[in-house]
């Protein structure tokens, strides 16, 4: 039957058996042509995945931006505050009291902006009242904390005066019976101003109110306290020693000063003093934030899954619609693998486009919100890079089943289906 020699037949066979192949560039072009043949449908297809990735990117970016913002805002105060107090001394040992000249000793250190001493005054449960008369049936005397402050303390806690003035060195030296009220204490006592020489009584002692505070940035207990000069507390209530030293430092000086202040105050017994600066509440904030973050990430993931189903659905419909085209491609020499690869590439491209758009929109959202809040946008550089990758993988997974269906089609049936 075979009239050719064996060698001739072999040569022919070898050439004739070469499988068909597809240039990579053609594969890309065919996939793109397939997608862009119906631009409207392409937009609708990528919408779901795009929204999902936008949500993911925006959530990650915004939570990062917000937490960076909260921490940096808090830092400014926390990083410039030191509080020194004495530890209780053991039985039979010398006390760890702070010296009366604590402020002078600290002020000499480099990096100190302001320093003051603050002590709680023991007034034997005496009540504070604004009126010398006791009205029956109406409570006009209150138990209020009495604090003794050195004049410079008000600077150290960044106190703002609503009305009147703050006590000075003279009041303290003379032991004058003057007081400054925190805004809450003033309200409780019913004192609005100092123009009429308002006075209060602490137990039996009468004090002249010379000022009312508006607010403080540190030691918020002062807001509901009655503050008297340190000298007055010493002379009239037997204050033994200042209880705490409040220091405002320059930015960045805290860690160095924390090591120096104990030695400056008590070179003889530095370890008897407790030097603290406020705990940075970062972990707490992060905890609160991560709950919200998880919620939004889950929303993003759900939307991503919905988007993937959308891509799978549309790709499947496209396969069914393009059965005739698939048959034609098979007739022109496409293998099953060529068909599957083209459809996979189409869905992966849809995913990639969704990812790029989602990442861009997400970043725009972060920048927009940050601009509105006058925050600095902060984002992990991996996020905008990973988003298109996730989109691409999503598209690839979504296109798997439709591509398989397309590859399994018998060219005969596919051609019979028409275009």
């Amino acid at each position, binding site marked *: *039957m*075979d*009239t*050719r020699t064996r060698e001739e*037949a072999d040569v*022919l*066979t070898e050439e*004739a*058996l*070469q*499988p*068909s*192949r*597809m*240039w990579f*560039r*053609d594969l890309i072009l*065919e996939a793109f*042509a397939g997608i862009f*043949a*119906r631009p409207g449908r392409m937009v609708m297809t990528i919408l779901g995945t795009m929204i999902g990735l936008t949500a993911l990117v925006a959530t990650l970016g915004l939570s990062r931006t917000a937490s960076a913002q909260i921490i940096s805002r808090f830092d400014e105060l926390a990083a410039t505050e030191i509080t020194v107090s004495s530890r209780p001394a053991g039985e039979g040992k010398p006390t760890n009291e702070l010296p009366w000249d604590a402020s002078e000793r600290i002020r000499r250190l480099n990096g100190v902006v302001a320093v003051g001493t603050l002590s709680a005054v023991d007034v034997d449960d005496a009540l504070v009242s604004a009126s010398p008369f006791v009205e029956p049936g109406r409570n006009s005397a209150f138990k209020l904390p009495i604090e003794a402050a050195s004049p410079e303390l008000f600077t150290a806690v960044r106190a703002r005066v609503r009305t009147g003035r703050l006590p000075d060195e003279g009041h303290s030296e003379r032991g004058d019976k003057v007081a400054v009220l925190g805004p809450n204490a003033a309200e409780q006592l019913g004192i609005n101003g100092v123009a009429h020489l308002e006075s209060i009584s602490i137990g039996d002692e009468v004090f002249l109110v010379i000022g009312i505070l508006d607010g403080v940035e540190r030691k918020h207990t002062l807001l509901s306290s009655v503050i008297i000069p340190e000298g007055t507390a010493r002379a009239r209530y037997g204050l033994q020693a200042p209880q705490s030293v409040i220091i405002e430092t320059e930015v960045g000086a805290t860690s160095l000063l924390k090591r120096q202040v104990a030695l400056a105050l008590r070179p003889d017994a530095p370890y008897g003093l407790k030097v603290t600066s406020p705990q940075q509440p970062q972990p707490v904030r992060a905890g609160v934030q991560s709950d919200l973050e998880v919620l939004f990430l889950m929303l993003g993931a759900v939307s991503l899954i919905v988007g993937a189903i959308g891509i799978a659905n549309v790709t499947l419909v496209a396969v069914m619609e393009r059965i*005739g*085209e698939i*048959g*034609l*491609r*098979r*007739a*022109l*020499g*496409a*293998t*099953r*693998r*060529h068909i599957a690869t083209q459809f996979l590439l189409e869905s992966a491209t849809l995913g990639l486009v969704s990812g790029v758009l989602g990442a861009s929109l997400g970043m725009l959202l972060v920048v927009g919100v940050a601009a509105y809040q006058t925050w600095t946008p902060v984002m992990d550089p991996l996020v905008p890079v990973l988003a298109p990758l996730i989109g691409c993988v999503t598209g690839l997974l979504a296109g798997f089943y439709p591509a398989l269906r397309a590859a399994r089609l*018998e*060219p*005969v049936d596919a*051609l*019979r289906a*028409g*275009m």
Partner: protein
Amino acid sequence: MAEPIVSLFEVGRTFGDGAPVVALSEVDLEVDVGEWVAVVGASGSGKTTLLNIIGCLDRPTSGSYRLEGMDVAGLSDPQRAGLRSRDIGFIFQAFHLLAYRTVLENVMLAEVYGRRPRAGRRDRASAALGAVGLGDREGFLPTQLSGGQRQRVAIARALVNGPRLLLCDEPTGNLDSVSARGILELIRGLHAEGLTIMMITHDPGVAAWAQRQVTIADGRLRG
């Protein structure tokens, strides 16, 4: 005498597993190089199945099919795809043009799965279009062409890879008589240049154009 380009020996094709439908049984057919053979039969006679087997789109369930002396049954899917891209040209009743691509791009599609370099593809497609008389329609979309012109585009696409065998499935089935005549004259010209042509049709008037006619009924050939 040279070996026939198509050689079918007792070819049968059965569809389905449970209640099998016999589409072809014991078909013997030889087509020589340069022949123009028409397979005539009513719808359901098995003629499309026969063409699909000859075009390597389908495999026989029994018998053997040798294309250019080579047993096709033993080839893998990619190898048969390679045969389709190089050696066989198809034209269909429904044209099968991609609606959203220009005429030229439709013709260029034929080379996507071939082994030729990409360079020169546009020129080769353009030349093929010129050969079927549509050199001035390259940028048109298929929807802007008449039925006869669309089938000419399909013929250009089938010819661009230089096939040895042209398979025509009811090439004039969707055309009016004037366009049909134009297409048949074009095919006659290709035959005159030496191309082997197999055409299936239900229309005896169309089959009369061919060199040799074979009738198929109920899956069996009658000389």
